[in-house]
């Protein structure tokens, strides 16, 4: 090993190699699990809130507005502690005594608040003519939203949604303050345990590499999905024989 203190502190290969097996065996799986479940919860909450935010009835809009403002406005750490420590302490224990479920709920609730605004802006950007055309076919408001407006709205904000997913993956690290038990520890928890044990920061670098291995491909995956939906899976060049293509008035988002 080198004597350079900088290299030794951050890039101590020996420590990194000791940390990686634990990160991969336990941490990666749990980080992915917390992040995935939080994202699912966030998408469900966010979509429901977005639809409520767009309601014409103020008493449906109002609670959604409060929800979004509160959970976008609070520090993530505070929300995680409120839900992860406060809820079970108060006797509300939907997920038992293990902190895992509360961790997922906390990150999901925060994610849902952000996604609500992202989805709302996407849905609102869809031309009113789309809703009118759907209604003129006899669809109810709900059907028109589900089949016509929401699918288009969500596609327009996919890059922003990807950004939120990346945030959710990173924020899953904050659940370490809930004191996860053996078998439930995620990447950051394991890394900081190793830091405390070795007095060396290299485990953080190892954990960081694991996070990047999740977040960077995630971004590229959603961007790829975005491109594919934009071009349309079924769009093949076909001779347009009887007249020339007009500007795509109903096509790609403006």
């Amino acid at each position, binding site marked *: 090993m080198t004597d350079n203190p900088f290299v030794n502190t951050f890039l101590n290969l020996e420590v990194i190699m000791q940390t990686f097996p634990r990160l991969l065996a336990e941490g990666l799986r749990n980080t992915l699990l917390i992040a995935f479940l939080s994202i699912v919860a966030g998408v469900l909450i966010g979509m429901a809130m977005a639809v409520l935010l767009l309601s014409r009835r103020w008493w449906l809009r109002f609670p959604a507005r409060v929800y979004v403002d509160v959970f976008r406005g609070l520090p993530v750490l505070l929300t995680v502690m409120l839900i992860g420590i406060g809820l079970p302490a108060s006797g509300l224990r939907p997920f038992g005594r293990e902190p895992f479920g509360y961790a997922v709920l906390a990150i999901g609730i925060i994610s849902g608040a952000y996604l609500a605004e992202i989805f709302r802006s996407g849905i609102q950007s869809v031309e009113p*003519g*789309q809703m009118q055309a759907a*209604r003129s*076919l*006899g669809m109810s408001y709900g059907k028109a939203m589900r089949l016509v407006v929401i699918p288009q709205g969500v596609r327009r904000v996919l890059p922003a949604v990807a950004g939120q997913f990346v945030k959710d993956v990173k924020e899953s690290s904050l659940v370490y303050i809930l004191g996860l038990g053996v078998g439930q520890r995620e990447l950051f928890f394991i890394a900081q345990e190793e830091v405390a044990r070795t007095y060396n920061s290299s485990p953080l670098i190892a954990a960081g590499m694991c996070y990047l291995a999740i977040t960077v491909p995630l971004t590229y995956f959603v961007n790829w999905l975005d491109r594919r939906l934009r071009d349309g899976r079924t769009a093949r060049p076909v001779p347009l024989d*009887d007249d*020339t293509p007009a500007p795509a*008035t*109903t*096509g790609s988002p403006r």
Partner: protein
Amino acid sequence: MITLENIHKSYGPVEVLRGVTLDVARGETVSLIGASGSGKSTLLKCANLLETPDRGRVLLDGAAITGPGVDVDRARARIGMVFQHFNLFPHMTVLDNVTVGLRHVRGLPRDRAEQVARARLAEVGLAHLTGQRPARLSGGQQQRVAIARALAMEPAVMMFDEATSALDPELVKDVLAIMRDLAASGMTMLVVTHEMAFARESSQRVVFMDDGVIAEAGTPEQIFEAPRHVRLRRFLAQIL
């Protein structure tokens, strides 16, 4: 077939419709003409309740479709609407644009819906484009898909809201030809149009709207050969 009784509609302080009464008989084609802002399009939107009239009634086949307790969605499914800007669903293929109403409103199974959709698309000459996205089609093709989409629902009435106004001149004739055939086939039609040739040749009745009311109505001969209202004369002088 469709009756509008004393329709009033305001947007804020602007009174767009000031008591319009109009009856379209079964099999009849009525053309609505008039300057922009005269209330033609708003009248059409009120007729299929995309806009709620402030006052007045709409009757479809003798039954009121305005007022409390009416299943508006059901009524709308019987009124076909073609928009100026086509309003095709860009995230669906041409075929899905036509089948979506059949499947999710009429409740047809997928294969039956596709059968109907292919037949309607063939009638507008687009059988070869079923797998395309609307964005790849020309304006004229898009509007023909929109007509097929509306016709697939087997509407009792077809309404056209300036269906050719957004098209390049050379694409107008295909869409007009389809509308003409449809009128000749006995479809009940209410057509907002700036195409005076269509109004003259394909409609039984022409209605001139001015400032939110019907200023003059009559046969195409009466309207185009012997206009009485001074505003109608001025309008025709400008447009012909």
